[in-house]
């Protein structure tokens, strides 16, 4: 049996004005377990807290009920008071007789009656409280960033800057991501390489940062502060630490006709290659599907040429195991495939290209050395049609495309159109759009300049069909504002393809038990208040893996994610919320219902041997809650059919006791 003390606060006249506090204290004196009951003007004041502390000592109290303002206001205060008097802070219950009683009821009699009932409910609950101690777990002071695009790079740099070691895992042979492929960036039109490559060099030179390029995350175990990660470092057949990146092998390699991924297949690269001049790490990689030596055992030219002796045809995939305290997901995006969009003739004509391909075509380091040409015949295009929202903002039921707005297309299309007109004033540039969306600093001004200064022809309406005819592309479209059908003979058509999360995100989310939305974007812990955290503790989100984003937004989210990681890694120990779920193994069926509703992946299963009632032993699968990960929502407790899963601090028995007390 508990020894409960009841402390009724007047809150000046806030409570005492509508509630007869003395009567409440008197009535609660008779409740089971109550050994002391009193009232005071301001319980939260130093003097009030002293009353509580003294009563705890004097009456050997094991539980406290404070009838006062909302627990959201002073629960923490009174828990500290109890702790200071040597009582477990979770032996305190608050009866909210201000916000939910005295302030909403006008009549003294009614207010007093209700206050007594709320007090009784709190007493009934505290009678069933048990002392709770928050769990502690150590923190491994190292972060993992998955993805080496601008999001991953910025996050890693910020974390490293705070003094914590960071590893970047990038599946391509170099970091840099999509931004490295871009030409200029909106709205300032500075060149992407000029602002990105110095950051890439910073990463390479930072002692706190390790880069696992050409690598993928293979397995994730553990929990916040204590993740165990296996990383697969794919064999690149070049010793990374020895290769100087001189490029001699690349020049001499006889297997030259392989589509160049970096230029989206618009030109070729050899079997041994460095993706681009500023690659980090600047190390060659052998494409095993293209190399004659690896395929047929014939050639070996690169090994003979390499002065450093870096070529190693026997290299195998390597598994690296490392512990991390925090994980940042920065897996980015890809344009969707245009395969299904037959109406734009993407598959029929080389002169129908995506915006990213356009980006490479206009890039000085691209396949055409920055000269805008038609991919089919190398001629200069005169009429260029840009089509926006290809695969974005589609009907939910449409078979192709995405329901959401890809967000960045309006701005980069304006950029493309403007740059084209700037460099080639002889061109005619059309942009077909549904809406032009330009919220962002200096964005709308940018778009208006494209229209007003550079004479880009913006037409509200969708392109219905593109038909290649001779060396022209017949573009059939509608102009919604003038309600006219348009026919344009174009030389080049550029499709602003929707963007989607990288394909690697879904399996990664499963490994991390991080949740995703139906479009495979990672979901945030809270859409407004915790936008860079995943619901899974210790997993953070950076960049377009969480939703379509432009570069400034990505960089700011990357910084935000980094600051969350730094905040986590700065702690030596993590103290949990003790009001968490726990499973009674004797009653658990191992049915997985709880695991399925847990938003945090806090529940795992273990096979345990049990002594059965009939004296036999049986191995059973039972749930186990990770106290460091559980946030105490209680979804599992209701999903559990046997009642094996219960929530500390809000136990079934406690809530039922409150119900009973209220309904008496």
């Amino acid at each position, binding site marked *: 049996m508990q020894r409960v003390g009841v402390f009724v606060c007047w809150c000046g006249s806030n409570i005492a004005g509508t509630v007869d506090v003395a009567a409440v204290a008197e009535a609660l004196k008779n409740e089971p377990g109550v050994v002391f009951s009193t009232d005071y003007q301001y319980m939260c004041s130093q003097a009030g807290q002293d009353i509580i502390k003294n009563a705890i000592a004097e009456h050997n109290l094991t539980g406290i009920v404070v009838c006062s303002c909302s627990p959201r206001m002073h629960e923490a205060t009174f828990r500290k008071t109890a702790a200071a008097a040597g009582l477990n802070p979770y032996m305190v219950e608050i009866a909210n007789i201000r916000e939910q009683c005295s302030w909403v009821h006008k009549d003294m009699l009614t207010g007093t009656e209700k206050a007594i009932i709320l007090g009784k409910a709190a007493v009934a609950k505290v009678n069933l409280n048990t002392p709770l101690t928050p769990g502690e777990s150590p923190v491994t002071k190292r972060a993992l960033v998955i993805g080496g695009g601008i999001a991953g790079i910025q996050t890693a740099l910020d974390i490293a800057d705070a003094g914590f070691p960071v590893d970047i895992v990038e599946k391509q042979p170099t970091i840099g991501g999509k931004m490295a492929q871009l030409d200029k960036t909106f709205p300032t039109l500075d060149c992407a390489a000029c602002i990105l490559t110095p950051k890439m060099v910073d990463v390479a030179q930072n002692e706190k940062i390790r880069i696992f390029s050409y690598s993928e995350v293979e397995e994730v175990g553990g929990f916040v502060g204590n993740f165990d990660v296996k990383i697969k470092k794919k064999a690149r057949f070049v010793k990374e630490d020895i290769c100087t990146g001189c490029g001699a092998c690349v020049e001499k390699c006889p297997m030259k006709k392989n589509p160049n991924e970096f230029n989206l297949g618009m030109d070729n690269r050899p079997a041994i290659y460095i993706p681009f001049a500023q690659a980090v790490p600047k190390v060659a990689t052998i494409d095993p599907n293209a190399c004659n030596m690896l395929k047929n055992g014939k050639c070996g030219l690169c090994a003979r040429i390499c002065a450093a002796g870096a070529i190693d045809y026997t290299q195998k995939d390597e598994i690296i195991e490392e512990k991390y305290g925090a994980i940042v997901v920065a897996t980015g995006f890809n344009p969707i495939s245009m395969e299904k969009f037959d109406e734009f003739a993407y598959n029929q004509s080389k002169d129908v290209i995506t915006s990213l391909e356009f980006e490479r075509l206009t890039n000085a380091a691209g396949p055409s050395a920055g000269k805008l040409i038609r991919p089919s015949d190398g001629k200069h295009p005169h009429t260029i049609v840009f089509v926006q929202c290809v695969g974005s903002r589609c009907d939910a039921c449409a078979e192709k495309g995405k329901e959401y707005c890809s967000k960045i297309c309006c701005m980069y299309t304006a950029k493309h159109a403007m740059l084209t007109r700037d460099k080639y004033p002889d061109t005619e540039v059309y942009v077909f759009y549904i809406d032009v969306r330009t919220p962002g600093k200096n964005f709308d001004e940018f778009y208006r300049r494209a229209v007003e200064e550079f004479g880009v022809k913006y037409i509200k309406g969708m392109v219905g069909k593109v038909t290649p005819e001779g060396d022209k592309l017949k573009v059939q479209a509608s102009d919604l504002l003038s309600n006219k059908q348009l026919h344009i003979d174009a030389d080049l058509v550029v499709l602003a393809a929707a963007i989607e999360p990288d394909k690697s995100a879904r399996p990664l989310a499963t490994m991390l038990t991080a949740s995703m939305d139906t479009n495979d974007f990672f979901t945030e812990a809270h859409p407004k208040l915790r936008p860079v955290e995943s619901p899974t503790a210790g997993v953070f989100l950076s960049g377009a893996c969480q939703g379509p984003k432009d570069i400034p937004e990505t960089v700011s989210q990357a910084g935000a994610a980094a600051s969350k990681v730094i905040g986590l890694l700065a702690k030596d120990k993590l103290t949990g919320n003790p009001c968490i779920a726990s499973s009674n193994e*004797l009653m658990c*069926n*191992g049915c997985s219902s709880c695991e399925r509703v847990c938003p945090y992946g806090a529940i795992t299963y273990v096979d345990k041997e049990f002594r059965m009632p009939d004296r036999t032993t049986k191995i059973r699968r039972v749930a186990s809650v990770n106290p460091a990960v559980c946030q105490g929502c209680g979804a599992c407790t209701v*999903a559990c059919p*046997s*009642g094996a899963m219960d929530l500390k601090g809000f136990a079934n028995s406690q809530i*039922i006791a409150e119900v009973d007390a209220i309904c008496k």
Partner: protein
Amino acid sequence: MQKITKDQLVEKTVALLSDGTVSAVLGWSRGEFDYDITPAVFKTAEDLKENFVWNDFCGANFSKYLVAQTGKVEGKILVFLKPCDTYSFNQLLTEHRFDREKVYAVGIPCEGMADIAKVKEIVGDGIVSIEADGENLKVSTLYEDAPALVNAKDVMAERCVNCKSKKHVAYDELMGDDGEVIESNRFDEVARLEAMTPDERFAFWQNELSRCIRCNACRDACPACTCEKCVFDNPASSVENKAPANSFEEKMFHIIRAFHVAGRCTDCGECSRVCPQNIPLHLLNRKFIKDINEFYGEYQAGAEVGSRAPLVDYTTEDLEPGEVFDRGDKDA
């Protein structure tokens, strides 16, 4: 009446037992009469030959027994599964309730099982023997000189009249041909009750549930109720009792029972089959199934292993609890 014969099953089973594929067999054992058949674990060929039966009264669903029996037997246990039993089998696998590796599942087609109460309604009491005779059952009684011929369709158990599937969704080996999922009228009775006024429905259930004697047969026979410790047996749960104290407890017991299996119930109908008081308990389960189908899309528990039960799942577009009452005839 049943297309597969008992002899075929015994032959197959004896072969699997003697070549060591299985070390025990969960099957039906003959009783005192032709209809009182008991589930049994057979371990020898002799026992099988002497006691195994397969006829129109082999209604028991064996899936649940696997939870306990797979732990008791060395090697594999053979289990006979009628189409409806295979759904329970899968659901239990989804919930990790037994080790699939320890089971050898033999699917057998089912033409529907007879309900002895319906037989007695037609031919009267004092049944001495029941034999299958083509489409009919030949029933001899103490009180009539000549045996009565009863069409098996006329005495089919309610759950078989409203059979949802003749298709086996799990087996290692199938005897005979597999059937199809059936468009049944199983929700008609639920719809009939839904069409009543609340007062009529209240009176209907008050009458039905007042007969409950809390024998727990519905729970203990239910293949979805495999809790290590049922809340109704657990004094700490606040709902435990050994008797239906009053009409509140009658209702509470059946609401909670049905809610705990909602989304997991395969509609096998064992609850109603075993109820000694003839309470149509399956209607409560079917109400949940019908609602879930209408609210969240068609879902058949046990149709596949590993599927996510609707009540441990969600979409952001789900209907609001207040909307369940005014959805009207949205399909009409």
